[in-house]
């Protein structure tokens, strides 16, 4: 009896393989994208923090300079510089003073000022004083 050899092999299911490859690739890409986006988010957060820090420093610097300006231009500071002799005050003779204010202009009271300015007056009824 001659033995018969039957060649047995599994067929390659290309479609199924392709499907799994696509699924794996998709899952891989999704994972990588997730990681990438997470990193991006983190980088954006770090950048935002850095910008916030920079902005804060600028505000602080501005505050400091403002405070310095207030101090240097204050009446007290000018008086001190005057006392130290850094500034000199020269008396002006009363006859040499020219008043540019028109003679007929009356001083405006706070209530009269309201009518002329763009200010929106808040009445005392609607404004609770302490």
């Amino acid at each position, binding site marked *: 009896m001659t033995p018969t050899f039957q060649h047995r092999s599994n067929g390659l299911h290309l479609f199924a393989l392709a499907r799994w490859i696509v699924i794996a690739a998709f899952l891989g890409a999704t994972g990588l994208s997730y990681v990438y986006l997470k990193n991006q988010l983190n980088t954006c957060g*770090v950048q935002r923090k850095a910008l916030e820090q920079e902005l804060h420093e600028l505000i602080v610097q501005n505050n400091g300079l403002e405070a310095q300006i207030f101090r240097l231009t204050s009446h007290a500071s000018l008086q001190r510089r005057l006392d130290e002799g850094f500034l000199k005050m020269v*008396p*002006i003779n009363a006859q040499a*003073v020219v008043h540019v204010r028109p003679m007929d202009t009356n001083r405006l009271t706070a209530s009269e000022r309201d009518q002329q300015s763009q200010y929106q007056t808040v009445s005392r009824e609607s404004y609770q004083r302490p």
Partner: protein
Amino acid sequence: MLVCGLLAGVFSVFSYRLISLQIDRRPEFAALANQTQILKQTISAKRGAIRDVHSEVLASEMSMRRVIVDASHIKPDTLPQVCSLLADTLSLDRKVLEQKLTPDRRYLVVQRQVPEQTAEALREALEKQKLRGVYFEPDSTRIYPNGSLLCHVVGFVDYEGHGIQGIERSMNQYLEGHSGYRYITRDRTGSELVQHRGVEQAATDGNNVNLTVDLGLQCIVERELDAAVKKYAPETATAIFMRPKTGEIVAMASRPYFDINARAIAAPEQMKNRAIIDMIEPGSTFKIVTLSGVLNEKLVNPDTTVFCENGRWEYAGKLLHDAHAIGTCSVHDVLVHSSNIGAAKLAMQLGENRLYHYIKLFGFGERTGIDLPGEISGVVHPTNEWSKISITRIPMGQGVGVTPIQVVSAMGAVANRGKLMLPQIIHSITDEHDVPIAEFPPVAVRQVINQETVKPLVSALEDVVSPRGTAKGAAVPGYRVAGKTGTAQKVSPQGGYMAGKYVVSFVGFLPAQDPELVGMVMLDNATTRQGENYGGLVAAPVFASIAEKAMHYLGIDPTEAVPATRGADGILAIDNDRD
């Protein structure tokens, strides 16, 4: 089989533990993680500024940092290093710091109000040495660029930033902003993970408060008051200047004073705003009330004569004196010569009830309502508590307690055609973008006396400042000045009066025909030569000196001829040859 069974068993145990940790006890561990990682961060609001009428800054906020420590983030072996660095940079005691920084201290404020440069240097040093656990929070401090100028009015804040005196206190609810917050997530090193930032509520900055005070005028007033203090060395001194038509306070100063930036070393006596909290017997300045009453009731006219008993008058068994013996004089001259007896007789003609009525009408015995904390009402007893001699003493300013602001306010009513105005110190309130949210228009409290009564009264007050009157020294070249002197014996805390101690004052307004300013200068127990401690000799010249400079400053043209000798004084210009 056995091996498989064992493996399955082990894996089952592990799986159970995994499920238990991840699902069963998840809330517990999540809360624990949140507790360590999630933090509610406060976003500080900026306190508003206080400014004068020309927007010159009197109080402002400056950014600082607060250094905090989360000791649970510090590795035990680096604790001495952290303490040493903090102690060196912030000038703290290292040993105390080491004792405080136990691992359970998760929030310890190490130092407040650390300057930005110091905080930055500390942060860099921490980063360089790779030390953890030290963090920085925004903080701020209040700066007062003008130091002692207007110190009693501006006031100050406590270490938490709440106003405790002056405008800082009375306007605290407007100056103070509303702090915001945000929930932040931190990684294991303590750095914020910005992408996981939670709910955020922005901070609202405080509003700015603009005062009616003019710093230029305030400088003039304080300089002259300082000169007077130097000359007369009084215990206390006060000066107030107000616009009579609107009630706006343009200057207010008290001595002794303090530097707001160095308030920690100031004594309580230096911090008192004497313009509103000092109660004094007004002396002869109070005669305007009696005169107003009798003229307003038409009981007399300015030319009606009064017999002033030649300077000595006994009433109800008590003797009443005049400084100078006067016989018969007109009602007008009772004020000009400041006759106590004349004023007493006029008050008797007016009667107790009507005198009391006019005292109250002028606003004595009640708070004026100025927006400053701690104002007192003074003391005016009702008529049923008056003694037999009260009717003769109250008209000359004895037996009543008043504040300087009440006296200025009352004289302001005379200057303002009989209308009493509410003294105002707040001009407006603006938000953080400087958009006005509230203005304070002038408030007329009441018509105290008729307009017709004012004319003879002002005429008499003008004569007080003439060579005939008691206040020649209050005259200002080029302007008509009206006013009244006051010389009151000091009340002793033990009862009665202190011999040789006086409170001298002058209250007046100018130009008399169209008043722009009403003001008062008061000195308590001035040191003078014997017989010179009078309002007309001490306080009136100080008033004149302030008023003259103030008129120049405000650009109010003289209405009378100016003597040539006084022409050179006045407006000064800055000549800077070095800048």
